């Protein structure tokens, strides 16, 4: 089972072409709002963030723990974790984050952070 999941994740990670939205900035602004509403409580930078602390323990210094600081996320990967959850993170339903909002969230988190 673990092998299957890992293979699926690798396939997702390797996807590079995502259709550019007509108004990328507007979509990213929506994505930022979705992030603040649904993700920031666990995944923002800062103390006592369950997701950030867990990813810090998982990855150490090899990559940033806060999702907004990552430069290796893509919409398909974001979609996978939002819709399926992982460990104590539950999945999120379409009544919570619609497909359109999820696309915007994926666009927002797919970026190279300012250096």
């Amino acid at each position, binding site marked *: 089972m673990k092998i299957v999941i890992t293979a699926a994740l690798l396939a997702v990670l390797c996807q590079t072409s995502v259709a550019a939205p007509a108004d990328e900035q507007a979509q990213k602004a929506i994505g930022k709002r979705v992030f603040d509403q649904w993700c920031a409580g666990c995944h923002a930078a800062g103390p006592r963030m369950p997701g950030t602390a*867990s990813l810090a323990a998982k990855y150490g210094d090899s990559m940033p723990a806060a999702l907004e600081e990552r430069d290796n996320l893509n919409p398909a990967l974001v979609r996978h974790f939002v819709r399926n959850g992982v460990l104590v993170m539950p999945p999120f339903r379409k009544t919570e984050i619609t497909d359109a909002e999820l696309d915007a969230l994926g666009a927002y988190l797919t970026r190279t952070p300012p250096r």
Partner: protein
Amino acid sequence: MNTPQGVSPATFATALKAFAQVVGTDWVFSSAEDLGSYRDAYSPLRGLPDERTASAAVAPASAEEVQAVVRIANQHGIPLYPISTGKNLGYGGSAPARSGDVVLDLKRMNRIIEVNDSNHYCIVEPGVSYFDLYAYIQKKGLKVWIDCPDPGWGSLIGNALDHGVGHTASRYRNHFDAHCGMEVVLANGEAVRTGMGALPKAQTWGQFKMGFGPVLDGLFSQSNFGIVTKMGFWLMPEPEAVMTGWVMAPRYEDLHGVVETLKYVENSGLASGAPEMSSPLLGTGTSMEMVKMFFDGPPKLAARHGELVAGAKLGFSPELQRYGLDQQIPYWQLHMTFYGPPKVIEAQWDAVQSLATKAIKDVRFQAGKIHAGPEMKQAADRFEIYPQNIGMPNLEFFGMGTRAGGNPHPMSGHMWFSPVIPQTAEAIFEVNRVFDEAVRTIPALQRVPVLGLRPFALPTVFIERSFMAILGFPVSDDPKMNQALVQAFRELIRVGAEHGWGEYRTPTIFQDQAASVYSYSNHSLLRLQEAIKDAVDPKGILSPGRYGIWPKQLRKRRAA
């Protein structure tokens, strides 16, 4: 296509089409992918044949749409399982209590109908979360506080109906007791309002709880008699200031004095905040200290201290007590939170110290700073006070079970075993003795970790007048371990009931058993609930089995 139990694929398809005509095709979900997000994320039965999964989900946007969906469900015999925000994690989440039932997802009903900061109440729909209401109040600069549980993404209505609890003053922590009036859609599609909402021109929905005639509101909590579509709640006026005070007791036997002080202080209103107990000597903490532990790891005790704790029986040894006395480490600590004008807080704290000095030999005290006005939020942001103690929602408690704090075994979820016990020190000692013996001697309990039992279980005081001895079970991705957890949980329900300790709330998979131990007079309470079920929902289309209440045609399924 999965179908509800006893419903043909053709009938189900017809019903789904009719649901879509009411809510729109975008809000009827039946694909495997969509239904995956309705699975109980924390179920110990995940991936096993007994896992409770939905055959479809329907998401109305208004009470009128709920009524229309219920009428269709009644016509076709489709069982519905309402959820509010679906974040009742550890108690069933967004999955139905019975496999195949259709989840009625009320998350889209997210209107904040009114927040009144003069009369201090709100009226909301089920999809409104604590985060939502907090953000609304902050944005509008209203001078009221919410009372939120540890995680802030739950529904005010869902949490209250499941008898959930929070962290501020006594009057608000019991979320069901804090409610004031509700609107309910019955199984026949009719909407009723309780309290003053039943009087068409009344302006007092959020002010007078009882209305006229029998108070029926309780029928719609921990039950399956109707779908609550609006609810009022009393809110706490924002106080001038907050302060935490600690009463520190040096000896094991002092737990008696600590509990007597706690009871008098809370029941007389001297300190209205949530009292919490901890043991600095045993290394067990309050909610805030637990959150710290999730992120920073277990408390680092001196080597000798750690050895003495490990060697203690039921949290005691003469050597450990001696160590605590020598090192000035309290055996017990009572944490109290005061709200109000600073002068009132100072006077209340003085009174508490006088009382505790009489009740506990060699007692010591420590007071935190009085945080006033905007300083309250700043102190919570700095984690000098527990944010939930001033009604600030967050998700920090989910640090439990992550990889943080050096935890080598991240969890996939958790469950809480939460029996109500008497509010006495004797009961605390007895609970520890009974459950410690159970864990040592009952095979099903020897195989699993029981969180919070050792070195000593101190109960919580979320709800006034009683204690809850809450123990945790870590759900993992190991099906065998999870099945062992289920067996262990069932054993604890059985053992607890033998001593008169019943659960105040439990995951859906244990609700039959937990309800069955409330068995006075040949289960007369459950039989009354069943009579009501038959009267208000004769077809049994609302949440069959929830909280152990089954409709007549399915009653044989009930646990003996």
